[in-house]
């Protein structure tokens, strides 16, 4: 690295001025680098528009946290620590490099000043740390071979040789830089001059000790040789990095700065094109590489191939043909091949059937585990949705999903059930005696809307969650109602499966119905509906998930909970993706569980933002994936490993998947699943509301027998 050029400007060897040699290599190196990077940016110029220059202050803060602070790295202890050390070392060493680049070979870092001397000490240690860290990283790669780095055969050959080559180059850079300094100091010692200070146990210091006995001629050769190797390695690395995974050294700063800010949202079909103008858009989604936005292309360049995304991807874990890591790597390979540094841009092929398979793209449950993990904040869900939009536009949709979409179009729910039966779940006789749920169709107004959504309305098992939710709302004294036949599917997963226009029809219908109902807030027991109403819809009253309502009312004392019914049970809370990762509701459900006196709760090793998707909700229930086992089965095993025998969740789709998984894995009787609302409903201390608020007809009469 340039930091190695700490020499007096007139130093020379056999008549060759080091300064002029440096300048020559520097000029050639920089020209090459600029040329290569310009070529690399060519596809970005052809990419789709993206809006990434907004909220600059927020972006700057996130840059400090995720880039400068390396926030995500310690999620993998060893690799993260090594990366932190290398990154910190690079920053230290690059400071001088940048300074020299900008101000020339001038004084701030010269060894004479106090700043310079302090900096030298730090830089010597930085080089030592980087040297040791890359050595350790290399040993990890060669000896310990962490599984997440392996490349499955279907994705081509491994990247190990390249990784080790690059680590080797960095080590060489640190070594040559240190050798350069060490040899100079050794020469100074032999000449009887006052030697420059080398901090103890730093790499230059150790080399100096080793070189003490060498001849002066040898030292001069080493000094000059180390210098040339150092400068050449630096510029070779600079120009080589844009050809592979190390390009992230340059792109990461921009990738993190321009990263997506809003959780739970999906990018519009085209940035800058309003919903009304969509009919004029010729083609939807991503069909060819150039349909990706420039930021998504930058994502591909920024991928460091660390494999954390795929290590956490549930689809990858169960053997579906999707690995987020290779979504990026394959696209990068495509870009390198079709936009080569040397030669002309090549003709383009369709991505689906070209580098991606349709099943690969349908395999994603949009759980967000990959994005949560990526240290570089690479986005996957928006790309998946965009690719699906392209497939939907081309009519390339699996038959099982086509049926559900068709039913959503004609009936407003994926099951093809009759609209007029939407509120049938409230008509259960026993339930009606304890709780009377009114349909808000222009009659008495209500404060709160319970948005039920399709699965809770129609699925026999899940209807119980709806009834539990209604009883809880009633117990809080809430004046609430449902939309009944006027409620269509929230369309959450219609949008995420790429059928944007159908989503918009559903959204517009529901928005109108909700506004007409005049409610002031919305509660739902379905995290997918919650996310849709919160992030996909606009201008609605505030939305809450029932777990948030319960937590608040437990805190306020409105809801009181009895001692746990079965004290021998051990409960584990499973974070639904769209409640946890996408909406950051981690603590409320746990707080509610802990509010049930006597309840024993354990955490699964994968919990909170590392929760493992149960198999996916919405339309994913209709997809027939190619997989070795079900995600739900893995999740049930995780709960068993944690020592739990009851899985508590807060999502109807999780319930379907987990209950199925319990049956499939033969765990019936040993493991059970219950929704948070059901559990709370079971433990409610039921009392008559102390004060009537005049609309008792909407309300529950207390269930005295409870």
């Amino acid at each position, binding site marked *: 690295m340039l930091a190695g050029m700490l020499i007096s400007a007139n130093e020379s060897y056999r008549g060759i001025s080091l300064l002029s040699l440096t300048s020559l290599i520097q000029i050639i190196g920089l020209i090459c680098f600029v040329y290569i990077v310009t070529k690399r940016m060519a596809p970005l110029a052809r990419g789709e528009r993206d809006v990434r220059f907004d909220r600059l202050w927020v972006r700057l803060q996130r840059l400090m946290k995720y880039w400068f602070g390396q926030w995500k790295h310690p999620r993998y202890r060893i690799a993260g620590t090594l990366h932190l050390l290398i990154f910190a070392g690079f920053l230290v060493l690059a400071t001088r490099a940048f300074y020299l680049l900008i101000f020339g070979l001038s004084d701030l870092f010269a060894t004479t000043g106090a700043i310079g001397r302090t900096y030298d000490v730090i830089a010597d240690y930085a080089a030592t740390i980087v040297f040791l860290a890359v050595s350790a990283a290399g040993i990890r790669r060669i000896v310990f071979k962490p599984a997440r780095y392996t490349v499955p055969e279907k994705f081509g050959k491994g990247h190990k040789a390249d990784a080790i080559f690059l680590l080797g180059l960095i080590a060489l850079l640190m070594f040559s830089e240190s050798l350069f300094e060490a040899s100079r100091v050794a020469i100074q010692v032999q000449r009887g001059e006052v030697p420059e200070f080398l901090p103890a146990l730093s790499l230059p210091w150790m080399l100096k000790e080793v070189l003490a006995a060498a001849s002066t001629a040898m030292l001069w050769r080493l000094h000059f040789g180390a210098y040339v190797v150092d400068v050449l390695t630096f510029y070779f690395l600079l120009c080589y990095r844009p050809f592979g995974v190390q390009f992230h050294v340059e792109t990461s700063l921009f990738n993190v700065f321009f990263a997506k800010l809003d959780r739970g949202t999906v990018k519009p079909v085209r940035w800058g094109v309003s919903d009304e103008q*969509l*009919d004029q858009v010729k083609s*939807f989604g991503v069909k060819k590489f150039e349909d990706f936005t420039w930021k998504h292309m930058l994502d591909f360049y920024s991928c460091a191939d660390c494999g954390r995304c795929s290590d956490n991807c549930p689809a990858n874990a169960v053997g579906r043909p999707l690995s987020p890591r290779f979504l990026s790597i394959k696209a990068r390979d495509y870009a390198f091949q079709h936009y080569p540094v040397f030669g002309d841009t090549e003709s383009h092929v369709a991505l689906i059937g070209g580098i991606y398979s349709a099943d690969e793209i349908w395999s994603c449950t949009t759980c967000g585990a990959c994005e949560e993990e990526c240290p570089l904040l690479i986005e996957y869900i928006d790309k998946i949705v965009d690719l699906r939009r392209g497939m*939907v*536009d*081309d*009519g*390339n*949709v699996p*038959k099982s999903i*086509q*049926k559900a*979409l*068709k*039913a959503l*179009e*004609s*009936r407003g729910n994926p099951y*093809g059930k*009759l609209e*007029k039966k939407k509120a049938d779940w409230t008509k259960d006789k026993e339930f009606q005696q304890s709780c009377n749920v009114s349909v808000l169709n222009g009659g008495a107004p209500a404060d709160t809307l319970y948005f039920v959504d399709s699965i809770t309305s129609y699925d026999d098992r899940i209807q119980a969650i709806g009834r539990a939710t209604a009883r809880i709302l009633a117990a809080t004294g809430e004046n609430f109602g449902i939309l009944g036949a006027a409620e269509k599917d929230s369309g959450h997963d219609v949008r995420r499966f790429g*059928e*944007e*226009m*159908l989503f*918009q*029809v559903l959204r517009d219908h529901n928005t109108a119905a909700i506004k007409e109902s005049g409610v002031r807030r919305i509660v739902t027991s379905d995290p997918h509906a919650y996310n849709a109403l919160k992030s996909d819809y606009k201008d609605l009253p505030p939305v809450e998930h029932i777990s948030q309502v319960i937590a608040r009312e437990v805190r306020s004392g409105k809801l009181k909970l009895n001692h746990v019914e079965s004290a021998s049970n051990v409960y584990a809370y499973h974070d639904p993706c769209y409640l946890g990762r996408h909406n950051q509701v981690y603590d409320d459900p746990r707080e509610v569980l802990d509010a049930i006196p006597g309840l024993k709760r354990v955490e699964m090793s994968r919990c909170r933002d590392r929760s493992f998707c149960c198999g996916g909700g919405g339309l994913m229930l209709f997809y027939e994936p190619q997989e070795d086992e079900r995600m739900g089965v893995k999740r049930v095993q995780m709960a068993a490993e944690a020592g739990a025998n009851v899985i508590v969740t807060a999502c109807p789709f999780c319930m379907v998947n987990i209950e199925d998984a319990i049956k499939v894995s*033969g765990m019936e009787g040993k493991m059970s699943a219950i929704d948070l609302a059901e559990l709370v409903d079971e433990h409610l201390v039921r009392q008559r509301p102390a004060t009537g608020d005049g609309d008792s007809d909407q309300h529950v009469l207390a269930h005295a027998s409870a």
Partner: protein
Amino acid sequence: MEILVCARRVPDTSENEIQLNSAGNDIERDDLVYSINEPDNYAVEEALQIVAKAGGNVTVATVGTDEDEEILRRELAMGANHGVLLSDDSFSGSDGKGIATVLKGFVQKGKYDLILTGVQAEDGGAQVGGMLAAMLDYPFASLVNSIEVTDGNKLKVGREIEGGNREMNEIDLPCVLSIQTGINEPRYVGMRGIRQAASLEVPTYGAVELGVDKASVGEVAAKVERADYFVPTLGKGAEILQGSNEEIAGKLVERMKAKGGLQ
């Protein structure tokens, strides 16, 4: 190749709860949702795939009323070039032969190399294709599950035979084929396509334009009349095997062996 696909709008069996009306002569039609007859959708997809390879146009025609226009628009969104509604008061109440007569009138107005129908309408009797072929004096193959365009005048078609066997035939053009489901995977028609097709023109032809004798179609000419409509009484229910998974599997294998399902 100019291809005509004869399609029909039927109550969608997967999205309705089909119940008899109180008179017992029809199903309850309030609250039904309709869609294109599923085998017809496969026929349109097949036509589109043939045209994509061999060139030409796909026309979709249906005999019905204004309400039936929606399926034509759906097929236009799918990629068909033309949609034609064959509608006339005199057509109502037609039996299979009446519908074939109307279609024959339309076929003779144009020039089609290939006419496809679905293998049967979900509420029909798999009769129109064969009748239409006979009236036109065209060759006919039913239950077609593969089509290969060999040269300009012939097709190689595969037919599904009882027991899952297949039969390959060469058939001269022009001809009529009834298409079996499963011949392809029909493409998805999204909301966007349907919206775009909403503004396309769908011409309507009546008896006069088609040169159809009103006395040969509709209720007056129908020789088949629906006499009754009922839900069969339920037979003996399915049996649920009891026991542990291993026991159930054992019992199942035993039964399959006993019935000759396993050798």
